[in-house]
Each structure stands twice: as C-alpha cells, then as structure tokens.
C-alpha cells in the first residue's frame, strides 16, 4: 500500500523552504559577485570579498576579539555553571523550587536591558577595561544557558552512582571528577557549543559594552554596513554561517541535534 501525499502540501512545504533558505542563497550569491556593490544574482565570480575580510583590519581584530570573548566567557560560565547545576540537582529536594528558576531568569530579561545595566554599573561606574566588561557581559549572557543544559543532563543522572563511588572509598571531590563529570560529558559539550554560538552572535549586550578600539564581529558588521555597501558584508555573513553549520554538524555527529534542542 502506498500513501498518497496531497500535492498542495508538497507545494506548501517547498514554499516554506524557499522562504527559509532563499535569503541565505542570496547572501551567498552576493558574496561571490564580482561587483563593488551588493547585488543578486551575482555578476561574475570572485573570492576577492573573502580575502577582503582579512584585509580590513577592523574585521581581523573583531574576529579575534569575538573568538577570545566567546571562548573565555564560555569557559568561565562552565566553571561557574557546572557546580551550580550540580548543586541545584543534587540537592533538589532540600532546595526551594524557585531557586533553579532564578538561575534561568536572565534568559527572560531582554538582553538590551542587561547590556544597558552593565554599561551603567560596570563600565561607567567602576572603570573596568572594555575587554573585561565585554567578558563579564558575555559570561552573564551565556551562564543561564550553561546551567540549563547541564541541569538537563544531570536530571537524568542517578546520584546513587555517586554514593556508590563514595562508599567504595572515593572522596566526594574526586568522585565529582571521576564519576559525575564523565557521565554528563555530552551535556557539557552541548553547553559549551550553545554558549559559544550565543556569545559569537550576540549584538544587544555587546552594543552597549564595546568601546574605542574594542568591538565584536557582529557590532563591526553593523558599523561597516553604515558606511559601506560592498559584498564584504555578505562574505562575512557566509563565514559566520559556515562556522555555525560546521559546529552544528559536529554536534549532530557527536550528540544529535535533537538532544541539544530539547535542552534549550
């Protein structure tokens, strides 16, 4: 028996895909167009605009800054977030219910509000260098995601395993590293990737916290668009897209995308 699929449904699905993927195709086309302005369909073929990214020092600097901030902020968030998620799950019965909600609350606060309050409290009032303000901002931005994802991994962790290890003579601190952590490894990797991508793509928080000489890639893209309209923007976008796709492929291969998506 074969199932007949309504042709209208196929058409509708195709339209949705065109709607979703269309802009990406246009950006990709624009990035390889041999013209000095953004255009689609591409006229001529060149990789010049990709070389141009590196040639423009502002892009070069902000790519490095973005990677540094994303890597450091994610690492710090993991160092804080893993023990926090552990405590929230290990002592779930003893702790009040609202506590774990509290840790996820920053996700609900508009990022622009967070950026502004950090600007007021950290950057202006305490005179912390811009790089560190950005780092603090991004750490706070990604911390709730880290706690959320690792909590999800720990929620299915059977803590009697930890007790078994302790009863066999393993100290509690050592047990955390030899027994607990290896069993939530996939959650830690997922949290790292999610936090890294969130930080790399962030505009709202960074908008307030960047300053003279230091900026992140998304902010630089905005700044560039205000002055120029050449295909470099398109090629930077393609670069970001390719980076994200590569990360997603790695996640899919190692953990499965659905597993990560379910934790968000």
């Amino acid at each position, binding site marked *: 028996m074969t199932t007949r699929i309504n042709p209208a449904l196929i058409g509708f699905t195709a339209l949705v895909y065109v709607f979703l993927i269309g802009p990406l195709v246009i950006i990709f086309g624009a990035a390889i167009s041999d013209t000095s302005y953004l255009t689609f369909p591409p006229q001529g073929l060149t990789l010049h605009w990709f070389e141009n990214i590196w040639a423009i020092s502002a892009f070069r600097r902000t790519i490095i800054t973005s990677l540094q901030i994303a890597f450091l902020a994610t690492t710090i968030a993991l160092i804080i977030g893993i023990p926090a998620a552990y405590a929230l799950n290990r002592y779930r019965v003893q702790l009040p219910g609202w506590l774990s909600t509290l840790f996820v609350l920053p996700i609900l606060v508009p990022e622009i509000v967070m950026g502004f309050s950090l600007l007021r409290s950290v950057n202006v009032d305490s005179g912390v260098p811009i790089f560190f303000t950005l780092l603090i901002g991004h750490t706070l931005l990604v911390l709730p995601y880290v706690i959320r994802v690792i909590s999800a991994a720990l929620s299915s962790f059977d803590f*009697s*395993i930890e*007790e*078994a290890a*302790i*009863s066999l*003579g393993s100290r509690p601190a050592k047990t955390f590293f030899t027994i607990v952590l290896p*069993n939530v490894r996939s959650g830690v990797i997922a949290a790292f990737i999610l936090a890294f991508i969130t930080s790399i793509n962030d505009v709202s928080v960074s908008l307030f916290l960047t300053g003279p000489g230091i900026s992140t890639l998304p902010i630089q893209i905005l700044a560039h668009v205000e002055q120029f309209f050449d295909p470099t923007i398109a090629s930077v976008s393609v670069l970001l897209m390719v980076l994200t796709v590569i990360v997603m492929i790695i996640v899919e291969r190692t953990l499965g995308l659905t597993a990560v998506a379910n934790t968000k």
Partner: protein
Amino acid sequence: MTLPLSINNITAHYGTTKVLEDLSLDIGEGELVSLLGASGCGKTTTLRLIAGFLQPTSGTIRLGDKDLTKLPAHARDIGLVFQNYALFPHLSVRDNVAFGLKQRGIAAAERNKRANAFLERVGLDHLADRLPAALSGGQKQRVALARALVIEPPLLMFDEPLSNLDAKLRVDMRVEIRKLQRANGTTSVYVTHDQEEAFSISDRVAIMNEGRIMQLDTPETLYQRPANAFVARFVGFENLIPMTVTARDGETVTASLSDGSTLKFSQDRFGAIDDKFVLATRADGLSVSSDPGAEGIAAKLGLRTYLGRAYQYECETVAGKLIANGALSNPLEPGATAKLVPVADQCTILKPE
C-alpha cells in the same frame, strides 16, 4: 575480616521531622539482619546513617571498636548494594568491580586479577569487558554484588537489592546473596519491604514502624510469636480478639468475649496470662465448626472462598469481622451460624494496645 555493628540510641531528623527515635540495634559478627517495613518506616534512613550519607541528631554507630559517626562516608569501608544497581555507566564491568580496589591504591594488575576472581564467583567473568548497559538486571545486580564484596568490607549493606528484578530472579538472587554472605561470613544489613525476602534469608529481622523497631527476632519467632499487635498484623494475623479473664483454675484460665461467651486457655501453653489480653490468630487458627455445642466464638458466616487446602469464611462476631478456615468436607452457606474454635498451636496472646 568481619565486625559486629552496634547502633546506640540513634535519633535522626529530616529538617524538623523526626524520622528515627532512639533506635538501638546490635548485629553480631557474620550475622545477617534485615530491616523490614513499609516505605517511610525509617529502614532506609537507618541504612543511610550507617553508610554516612546522613548524620544522626544524636547517638553513636560502632563497627567493631570504630565509631562510624566520626568518619566521613568514604572512610567507612562498607560494601553497599543499591536497589538500582548504581553501576558506573562509563566503566567496563571489570573496572566497576575494581573501582574500590583502585581507591585503596592497589596496582592495576593485582586489582584486575581480584576483580576477575570475584566476577567468576558471580558467574560473569565472560562479560568483564562489557559496559553495564549491555547487561540484564540480574547480571547488573551480580556485578554490584561483586563490586561490594571485592573490597572485603567488614560490613555489607543491601538497600532493596531485588526490587527491580522479576519474581523468579528475585528468589534465585536472594539465595545467591545469602550463599555469598555465608561464605564470606560478612556482617550484613539488609533493607527490604518484602516480608518473604526478609524472612527467607535473615538470621534476624527487625520490623520497623514510624522510626522505631517494633520487634527484633528470628523469622520463626516473628512469624509464630509476634510481640505486639503491629507485628501480628504485619505477619498476617488477621484476627485480633480482645478478651477478659473471668476465672483462674490452676494452669487453666477462662476468659470471656464482650457477649459473655467464654474460652479456656492453658498457661502451660501461653505462659502467664494477664487479666486483659488479645487473642491473635491467622485464619488457620480459627476453625469453623457447625456443631452448636463446640466451645468457640459464635459467628454468622459471610462470603466463602476456596483456598485449595480449605474454605475460608468472612465471619460476623461480637469481636467484629473475623476470618476463619473450615474443612473442605463440610462447605457451609453464607448466613449459616457456626462456632469459631481457636486452634491452640496457631494462636498467640498479646498485651492489649
């Protein structure tokens, strides 16, 4: 090496709720004692206090001459077997078993040798390189058993170890646990809610309720001579009948029910009988007799059920609803009147509540 365990006047709280009250328990060297009771009776709390996962409010726990309450959980040297096996999912079966030896600083070659030897004892040496996920429930519990035994602990504790297994396997495993425990002669604490399981493998059983031990005795004594109404009901004494002594004649005591009908009891059999007491029996201990002249409790019969070896009747009496058995040769109809005659060696006498 095996040591006696001595729990002295332990009181424990969860927050402000008292979960154990002045509990004392001595377990001899090599003895297996079960803590038996419904959930919330304090049996698991007791086990966790001994293991060091909980701290008592007051009291001491001694293993040999060591005061356990002064030691952290990882230094107590107790073999634990959990209900849900609690195997390390990321380690092979062999590494699971060798884990405790590794913590004791034993070299890899030696600990693998010892782990293999214990896996052989539980019949799983051929699965040593598998991960726990590849094992069945029974195999997992065998690995957990080997893991707890290989460190040669002076005390073994089991927390509902068979609850997750199916009925047939439960019986096999409890025999296996008892054999291994006997062979090693290790002092053991066994927590369970399953009466048959506790009675079948224990030297003594502590029946617990609301944070206290109601009776600690051999399974035989508990089953035949419960010390109080709670234990009597727990071990299946359906009929608890309050009686009052009306006459004493040497060793024979006459006692009456609330309707004035009397029964005779021998103090030779039941020991000294107080003026007020409770006659406790299972259905087996009350025999349904259609002879109106029999000395027994007047009853109106209700529903009759067939047990194979006897008929069982629900009976209305002055002492409330009682359950009694009657002979297969003489089935009686609902509504009939009969006498329920106590069978002396199936009865016991309790203090009133």
